[in-house]
């Protein structure tokens, strides 16, 4: 077979970075393996519902409620193939090509996705009219978070609140009533279960639209992984 396809590839893929491979296997809690075994024995080897299994979505809203006093319905949660898919889906659906995505610091998690979608990453609000979405994590400077959330309310920016590093602190942008419909929370089980590929996105008035787009990419997230993630609760 020739090394190259007979026609040029899409322009959007030129210069995309090589993947950063991290194949380190972490010890997996026994409860996770038990949950996975049980799921396999029960025949949970077929498509799950498009949003993901209800017990896992319920676990996520409970965790968000406990940490941030957020009152979300499990219907507002979609289980994704890691936080990577959740971030990509949110960007692809909410940040139009040519617009700007605002972030405070390291943007490695967004750079390749931004290139594919055709959005520009920026750390300054010099042209607020071009901003479509602001990407924030609990580790960002609280003063900046506060200022940008205020601007997001005024200017209608989407807020992507990435807690894939862990549910930390007690502030959450969706606690601001005026901002809540514009806030998508993205999280992940990958810190504990990197090879299982389970993440999630929750909340916002765009939840249904985001779910439909995720479905168009991967239909649903791996069933046994979802059940395994549920096993983390006991740990």
């Amino acid at each position, binding site marked *: 077979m020739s090394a190259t396809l007979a026609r040029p590839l899409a322009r959007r893929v030129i210069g995309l970075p*090589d993947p950063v*491979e991290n*194949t380190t296997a972490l010890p997996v809690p026994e409860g996770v393996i038990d949950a996975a075994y049980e799921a396999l024995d029960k025949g949970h*080897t077929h498509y799950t519902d498009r949003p993901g299994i209800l017990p896992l979505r319920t676990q996520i809203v409970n965790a968000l409620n406990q940490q941030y006093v957020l009152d979300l319905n499990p219907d507002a949660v979609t289980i994704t193939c890691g936080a990577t898919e959740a971030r*990509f889906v949110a960007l692809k659906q909410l940040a139009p090509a040519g617009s700007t995505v605002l972030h405070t610091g390291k943007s490695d998690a967004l750079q390749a996705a931004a290139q594919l979608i055709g959005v520009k990453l920026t750390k300054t609000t010099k042209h607020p009219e071009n901003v479509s979405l602001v990407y924030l994590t609990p580790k960002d400077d609280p003063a900046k978070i506060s200022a940008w959330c205020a601007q997001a309310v005024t200017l209608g920016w989407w807020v992507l609140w990435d807690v894939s590093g862990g549910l930390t602190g007690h502030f959450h942008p969706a606690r601001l009533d005026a901002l809540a419909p514009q806030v998508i929370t993205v999280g992940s089980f990958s810190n504990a279960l990197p090879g299982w590929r389970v993440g999630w996105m929750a909340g916002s008035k765009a939840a249904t639209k985001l779910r439909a787009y995720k479905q168009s990419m991967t239909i649903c997230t791996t069933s046994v992984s979802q059940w395994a993630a549920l096993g983390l609760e006991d740990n």
Partner: protein
Amino acid sequence: MLVANPNIPEDVRAVAADGTQLRYKLMELSAQYPDAIALGRGDPDLATPAHIIEAAKIAMRDGHMGSTPVAGLPELREAIAEKLRAENGLPVERDNVIITTGGQEGLYLVMQTLLDEGDEVLVPDPRYTSYDEAIASAGGKMVLVPTTHEDAFNLRPEAIEAAITPKTKVILIITPSNPTSGIVTEDRLRAIAEIAVRHNLIVISDEIYEKFLFDGWKHFSIGSIPGMADRTITLNGFSKTYAMTGFRVGYAAAPLDFIQAMTRVKAATTGAAASVSQWAALAAQTGTQAPIREFHRIYAERRKLMMNGLTDLGLDYSDPRGAFFLWTNSSSTGIQATELAYLLLKEGRVLIFPGNAFGEKWGGYLRISVLQSTDLLTEALERMRPIIERYRAQESS
């Protein structure tokens, strides 16, 4: 007509123009009826073979739970390359293969990696509408190529040639086809390959149902034709063949530069497929293939039952040469397919997808899957009978 139809609830009408959303809406409604018989989704009802489940457990026991490389587990890529060489005649090595998170992701990634704004993709009509979404998401333009009932929905090379414009970049082939269960025969594939070479086009060949052909029909891969290897992207997966849709493992095979770029896109969009799933898929690929032969026998029996049942109901269907579906002409009932599907669900508790969920002009067809036991298929046919007969009587009076 559909938009104003009072027999269909507003939430169904609201999504009637979007094939994918319409299918999901009907599945959602079906979930309200515990006694509904699902002949909608293409998810095999049969259990995943035991040796595949066991392999997943062994993978966990052995600690194979870290991320794999984004392109997939090397052992699995190697096993797939070997399969593609031996069974499909494709000249591929391990590095020509990428593991995807199911077949649908394969399609999505291929379009993202290949299409620029305005590039045209020739797509057989009717079609699984996820193709529409994947093409549109990459800025491409879908150009429909007609296929007909009389021709068993085989793809006609002259119809492809007629649809080519200076913007055409891709011919999409799905054989066997979802929703029609037709196949593209070898003679037609050879003619299509000649067109692809002459017009310098890429062929995407979706072969996810390749293991389920009937009545002596044989699968043929267009990528095996001399001169096609550097212009063919072959898509396939484990979901349908091994009844393991929930594991989400598919794959694509293509020239090296394409696979490398597709891997970068995958890293940016979803990351590697789940590790345990890939170990399970490796067992599927390298272990006994006896379960597939048994699945084939079961599907053949069900297919025959459903064909006879539909004939009894006076419904015509196209020649189902492969896959799991009966693409059934329902126009004799006199009602549009979405309304008929809704009534079959509401009154008969049988979930069937309307033809217009697979293309706007197919409102006179139903896609009926055979992914239920023979007892349930018999029951479904009995439930359908009074509804079909009532509407047909109204139509003729």
